[in-house]
């Protein structure tokens, strides 16, 4: 199931928190060999985790992490503006309608349905909170996966070579993507809204014109 959890509440889900940070260590430090920090718990954790971000987490049936990503509003300090503005032609993106999405990761053995469920969650956030775009930092090899599940970002720029390669891209809010992503995730609209509402105690409003 999908959970939307602020950083300040993450410790109330200790299994989820522990397995998420371990899966992040496996992905970013061990597989991709990015220059990230692993703490004494074996967790990959950075300064942005300390800024009380909003996490979207796929929880497996046994309560462990199946996939996740991390959101911060671009009106505050963000990883993209701190580290990747060179990939955006020096544009410092700031808008209450654009949130940054970083540390997209799939757990061990997660399938493409989990990836699709997370893209679905990104869309639900955009729909519910009048967002126009998500601004993402990701491993460029994910682009093929994003494309398969029907939610391709527009890659704005990439840096590094080989395993170090990292990309910045935009997911615009395209309401029409939702049907495709729901299908790929094998989920109904109702269950997605139910999960959202349970996390936020907040129903998604009818789509507003974002102009």
């Amino acid at each position: 199931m999908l959970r939307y959890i602020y950083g300040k509440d993450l410790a109330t889900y200790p299994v989820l928190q522990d397995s998420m940070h371990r899966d992040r260590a496996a992905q970013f430090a061990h597989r991709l060999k990015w220059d990230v920090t692993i703490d004494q718990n074996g967790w990959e954790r950075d300064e942005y985790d300390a800024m009380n971000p909003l996490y979207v987490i796929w929880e497996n049936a046994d309560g462990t992490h199946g996939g996740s990503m991390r959101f911060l509003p671009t009106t505050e300090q963000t990883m993209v503006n701190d580290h990747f503005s060179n990939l955006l032609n020096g544009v410092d993106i700031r808008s209450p309608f654009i949130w940054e999405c970083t540390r997209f990761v799939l757990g061990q053995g997660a399938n493409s349905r989990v990836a699709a469920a997370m893209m679905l969650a990104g869309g639900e956030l955009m729909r519910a909170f009048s967002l126009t775009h998500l601004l993402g930092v990701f491993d460029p090899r994910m682009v093929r996966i994003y494309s398969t599940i029907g939610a391709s970002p527009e890659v704005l720029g990439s840096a590094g070579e080989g395993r170090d390669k990292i990309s910045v891209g935009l997911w615009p809010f395209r309401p029409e993507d939702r049907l495709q992503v729901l299908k790929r995730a094998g989920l109904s609209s109702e269950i997605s809204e139910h999960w959202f509402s349970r996390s936020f105690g907040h129903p998604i409003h009818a789509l507003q014109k974002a102009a």
Partner: protein
Amino acid sequence: MKALELDTFLLALDQADALDQIQDLIVGLRDAFQVDHVVYHWVSADGEQYGFGTYDPRWAERYQERDYIRIDPVIIGCFQQFHPVDWRRLDWSSKAAREFRKEAVEYGVGNQGFSIPIRGPNGQLALFTASHSTDDASWDAFTARHQRDWILIAHYLNQKALDLEKGRTPEPVRALSPRETDALTYLGMGYSRGQVADLLKISEHTLRAYIESARFKLGALNTTHAVARATSEGLIIIGGAARAAPGGWPGRDDGKIPKSAAS
């Protein structure tokens, strides 16, 4: 709220140079949105608070006196979050919260509320709130219709409050990046978004993100407003006759960005 009224509000907000002017602006918002109350509430990390709004002053006084900030589910629920919050989704289950709510309704706050939380610098929390007495369906319609405007107003209002805070140096107008400057310049010259995207060799989606970002930095309501702002602040220069001039203009034929426009 009509776009024109919001425009007038933002213009007046921009010109405000004292905190007490914000009170009048908020009264204007209440009338324009036709809700019972509009409130801006600032809480600093050390618990210091102030605010502006249309609540009964006796309620504001009582709130302070009773230190309700410690039990108010709106403050507790919005603390450290950054998504818009409908009051019905907050936790009103404790006895203290239920009594607080009952009292708030008696003082005319209303049975519905919608708050935009903003996490400002140094642990500041700002809340921009509408409250009203109405049924759930009408309130859902109100928040769905106005969420976007409400988010913008919240951010601009908080920026102004931060700028006017005593002893604080206002942040300089955020510089536009060259790409944002180019985008606004071309739009100001009358090009369509599609044409501007082509000129800048980016997609329309990316262009839209650049425009969103530029207009937020300019405190603008929409693209037209952003272009006007950028022009009046000298951030962009639009050669009025350039488009109509025969033979193009520098950079036109080789597709490069004209230097004069990008400066």
